[in-house]
């Protein structure tokens, strides 16, 4: 009986440890980054600039770990509260398309970079953390690449990314604010939609060549 109990305890302990390891935000960033880089290293199409394939990869591997609702709210700032739930949904969808495009393009430029994961400390019970990494590339200065994550019921989700101190999300705030002043929330949605369409059209042109 005692033996069984001990075995049970031990198993439970290992299981909890495993779940915690899986859930730790720094471990999550490392695992996703390495997985994505590994795929790119083996994929000649993405290396030679196949944006469609890169977008597909980002969609499948990276996006599940992002909270786009929160990202969009951050990018829009004060005006977010003025948007109806339906507008918020539309905005998030369009902003997501725009960001994925940008991010995927950065991946196709990937060449021999190495990622350094900075030491990470977290107090128990913390629900909002910053995971710091650095991109090393031969012949140039290391670039700081940080992720802000928050803990939701579904696990840790990224809600902001900063490259060399530049947030890819809040960098849109003034531009979005300008659009809202000019044409309201619907004007902003229309502008991002148009931007996405023109990028898509450019891509189609490249594909034809």
């Amino acid at each position, binding site marked *: 009986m005692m033996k069984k109990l001990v075995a049970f305890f031990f198993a439970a302990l290992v299981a909890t440890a495993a779940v915690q390891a899986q859930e730790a935000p720094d471990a999550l960033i490392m695992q996703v980054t390495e997985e994505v880089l590994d795929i790119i290293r083996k994929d000649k199409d993405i290396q030679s600039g196949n944006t469609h394939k890169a977008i597909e990869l980002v969609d499948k591997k990276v996006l599940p770990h992002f909270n786009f609702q929160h990202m969009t709210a*951050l990018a829009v*700032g004060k005006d977010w509260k003025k948007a109806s739930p339906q507008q918020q949904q539309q905005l998030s969808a369009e902003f997501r398309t*725009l*960001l994925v*495009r*940008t991010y995927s*393009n*950065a991946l196709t*430029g990937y060449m021999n970079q190495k990622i350094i994961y900075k030491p990470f400390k977290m107090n128990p019970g913390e629900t909002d953390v910053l995971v710091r990494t650095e991109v090393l590339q*031969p*012949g*140039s*200065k290391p670039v*700081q690449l940080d992720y802000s994550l928050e803990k939701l019921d579904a696990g840790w989700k990224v809600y902001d990314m*900063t490259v*060399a*101190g*530049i*947030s*890819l999300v*809040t*960098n*849109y*705030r*003034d*531009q*979005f604010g*300008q*659009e809202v002043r000019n044409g309201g929330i619907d004007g902003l949605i229309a*502008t*991002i939609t148009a*931007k996405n369409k023109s*990028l898509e059209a450019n891509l189609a042109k490249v594909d034809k060549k």
Partner: protein
Amino acid sequence: MIGMLGVPETIYCRKLLAGGFLALALCGNAMAEGNPRDPYEGFNRAMFSVNEAVDKYAAKPIARVYESVAPLPVKAGVGNFFGNVGDLWIGANSAMQGKFSDAGVDISRLLINSTIGIFGLFDVASELGLEKHEEDFGQTMAVWGVRDGGYLFWPIIGPRTVRDSAGWFIDSYGDPVWRARPIASRNSLLTLRFVDIRASLLPADKVVEEAALDKYAYIRDAYLQRRRNQIFDGRPPRLDD
């Protein structure tokens, strides 16, 4: 895109800067509304279009040629050389900001790279774990409490706040490349550094073109965020959402 992340410059910039300040002083009051961080937006947007043209027809094509002709070890050597030359002034700025251990690292880097690193062509110090810092006089003034004074966009030099434009002017005196003589060599070095920095920014061009709704505003806000990050040495306090 010129100058978004670096410190490119050409020979005429000092004169240009002085002229620009005069123009600003004359028209600054007329443009007081709009974005509080960008009080000279009208002037800046005009300069931005001038810069876009210069970039499109001169800087970018030259940088492209450099990028495709120079082999990686040459480019790395050029980057390291200018990086090494800059470490002296970086060390001076670290010290002026009270970061004496950083200053020690900067000067050690200079000594190691100038000798073992063969005139700075190899960044041996980084491999030894002596991290390169990014400092300039604009950051030093920020640490001393000088406000940024609003955003400015200069052709060729690129984005600078008022404070950082003044800082850039002082930097050019602390920068050994500007002091190189004869003048012809100095000019060649300045041009090479400019082309090297512009080439290193080529991959960012496409990202900015695709990501921005308004390229001018995107670059402005990226510059201001990046500067804030540099002033706080990579750990800026969080702003309210």
